[in-house]
């Protein structure tokens, strides 16, 4: 993490559940402390697609598969069909380990598929690795700072 604090990363999470948002926030803080990204939320896939053009552009999207209105499976192909959203890395978060869910997520354009860990220590470790990979290891598409 060599970036200044002023250039904090941004994560957009599509998540309908209030509790879940709470958990995500807490986990990010505990796992990444000062390196924690800015966490913004939309409630479902529809809200993600309908975000206004001048809304802050995230570095990555965390997508829950099971959401009302527009589920992750429904939102993925639409994200990939949207010129503005297409370059965004999408990380699917799910508690399902079933092959058919994993296969479908990748088929529809997910960049990675994350199975939610239960044990708190492991959740923190997983979140650390996630941040390390997307923010410390790979290059992300340019253009956030238009």
């Amino acid at each position, binding site marked *: 993490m060599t970036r200044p604090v002023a250039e904090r990363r941004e994560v957009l999470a599509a998540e309908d559940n209030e509790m879940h948002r709470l958990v995500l926030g807490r986990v990010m803080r505990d796992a990444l402390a000062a390196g924690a990204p800015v966490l913004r939320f939309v409630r479902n896939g529809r809200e993600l697609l309908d975000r206004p053009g001048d809304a802050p552009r995230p570095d990555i999207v965390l997508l829950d598969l*099971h959401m009302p209105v527009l589920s992750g499976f429904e939102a993925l192909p639409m994200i990939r069909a949207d010129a503005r959203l297409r370059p965004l890395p999408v990380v699917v978060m799910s*508690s399902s380990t079933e092959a058919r869910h994993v296969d479908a997520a990748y088929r529809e354009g997910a960049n990675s598929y994350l199975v939610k860990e*239960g044990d708190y220590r492991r959740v923190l470790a997983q979140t650390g690795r996630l941040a390390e990979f997307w923010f410390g290891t790979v290059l992300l598409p340019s253009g956030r700072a238009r």
Partner: protein
Amino acid sequence: MKASPRNIPGSAVLDRALLECAREPIHLAGAIQPNGHVFVLDPATGAIRGRSAGAPALTAAAHAALAARQAEGREGSAVIDGLATEDGATWVGTLHRGGDAALLELETPDPAGAGGRALDLLGEAIDALALSTDVAGACAVAAAGLRTMTGFDRVMVYRFEPDWSGAVAAESRAPRDGVDSFEGLRFPASDIPPQARELYRLNRVRLIPDAAAPPVPIEGDPGVDLGRAILRAVSPVHLTYLANMGVRASMSVAITRGERLWGLLACHHQAGPLATGQRARQAAETLARALAWRLAEIEATEVANARDRFGDLAEALATELGDPERSIETALAPLGVRLRAAAGAAGFLLVDGSLRFRAGETGRLPASLDAALAAAATGDGFESDRVGDSALGAAGLALAEAGWCGIAARRIVRGAASAENGEGEASDLWAVWLRREFRHEVVWAGNPDKTLAEAPPGTQPALTPRRSFAAWREEVRGRAAGLRPAERAAVGVVADALRHALLRRAQATARTNRELRERNAAIRFFADAAVHDLREPLWQIQVLAGALREDLEGAPEPGRLASVIESSAARMRGMVDELAAFAAAGEFAGAVSPASLASLAGEAALDLDTRLRASGGTLAIRLDALPRVVCEASQMRRVFQNLLSNAIKYRRSDLPLRIEIEGFVAADGRVRIIVADNGLGIPAAEVERVFEPFRKLAHPQAIEVDGLGLGLAICRRVLEGHGGAIVARPRAVHGTEFEITLPVVAA
């Protein structure tokens, strides 16, 4: 006198003679019998272009009457009464129109009163026919009636068999010496060759008033077609035939049923020539029609009776087959005897690609009977009373060798229907009745084989009528009794009932399948929703309890409580995962692909490595000899996981756990894998129950009893979904052995 079976002398020579006899153009006789005259007329102009030798000239009035009838322009025959000739005679004319030439035949008119008498006698005969209730009775009535009407010495009802040989079904004879009985005799098919039979369609009455009278040639147009002419001269072969029988005059009247020539009313006169007038001939023809009509009625009654008799069998079939849960075999078993009895058969079977049901002594059946039937059948049925000589015999089916001579088969379900249901090959379902040999004697009117004329060596001998009509007995072998109309009706009733019952059965099965599919889909949907809705809050509880525990690090008691919440949530989440796996087990949403079972078992072992080490156990995997198997890898991996997990769970505390996984390809080509442990073992009585869902082995010494008890149920569902199987058995000393079987599908 007994003789060897027929057709043995049926050498090529005889066959050729038969063929040549059948080719004789008897309709182009070029001559007429002398009891009348024939004129050949141009069909367009009416000009006379030929006449029988010695025919007198027609008067001008006769010409005018003729022209008027011809001008009507219709085809067919017309009777013209009172045609006069220049010699002063008056005639009854019959004008045959149509074709290349019109024919006018002149015959001597009936004496006055002949018409009334013919009508009276016809009425009496038809009254008697109406009272006869069986085929033999009706035929006897017709024969007697016709003899009274015509005065012939012998009148027979001559019935064509399927091979066109003729059987005498009834006979009426003048009580005179020398008029022998032909009753019960059989006449070979060559006695009435095909072209003669064909002429009966055109001309329903064949009259020979005097076989000894010399024919009169047609002059001017000797090649004219005389097929329609009542006066047509008789073929020399036929004249010899009649002479050999001692017959001087004859008349034959066609009995047709539908399109088929069913038989003849055959009249013989031995005492001398016998003229038969137009009215008597018309009456004879009407009597033949009435007989055909009555025979059809009698048969219809027999058929109706058979339907009544077998109606309750049809009901029983519907009832027994109605429950799709019962196999066809179980359902039909109590009806076997009655099913056979329907066609007087020794054996009954239902057969498609394989044998579905059998009743009675069916013995060893040839393979692919269904395919041979499909090829041989006309419409939806096949019948033969001489199976060895039929298309089935020709197809190489060894039915005759198995002792079967007669077969009656009906197609019950077309293969396409079952193929549409995805039940594999399109193979028809047949109901088949098998009949044994009916060994009997046929009494031929003379030796039917000795009909070749003596001919110089090297020349083709001609077929000549036999000289002796003395009874010649033949023992018929290799033949079953033909199906009687009532039996055929019963076969139809049973076939219809089977079709109906099986259709309803198929509908019921389809309905059940559809309901099951819908219910499965609903359960699947429910499981998905429930699993997700349970997982998420549990995850939240688990993670937040973990966060809380971290926060409470300085406070031991609340921290301990938080960790209890955390681990309870974790355990519950494990159960939900198990439930999800069970719901998905055996269904392949993901792609199947060739996978190495050794690798999958290795991955499973890695997943459980921590628990295995903690238990102090060891694991040996020897699956390298196995081919790659087409499967859904994640599900197959779970099978290994669950088996290993089970072994760890039910290990002995007094013995280091040892798990061995071994695999080989069995003689049947299937992969076999043995997963053996030295744990607590399963009692022999429990080896099947452990695969039931939610069944946990309540072993008092079990170390960990976690989860829902779905592990082995998942294994079984996964393997059955792959066309394989899994069974458990106790090992001789300690522990359990699971045996997995998997088909090797070509990749």
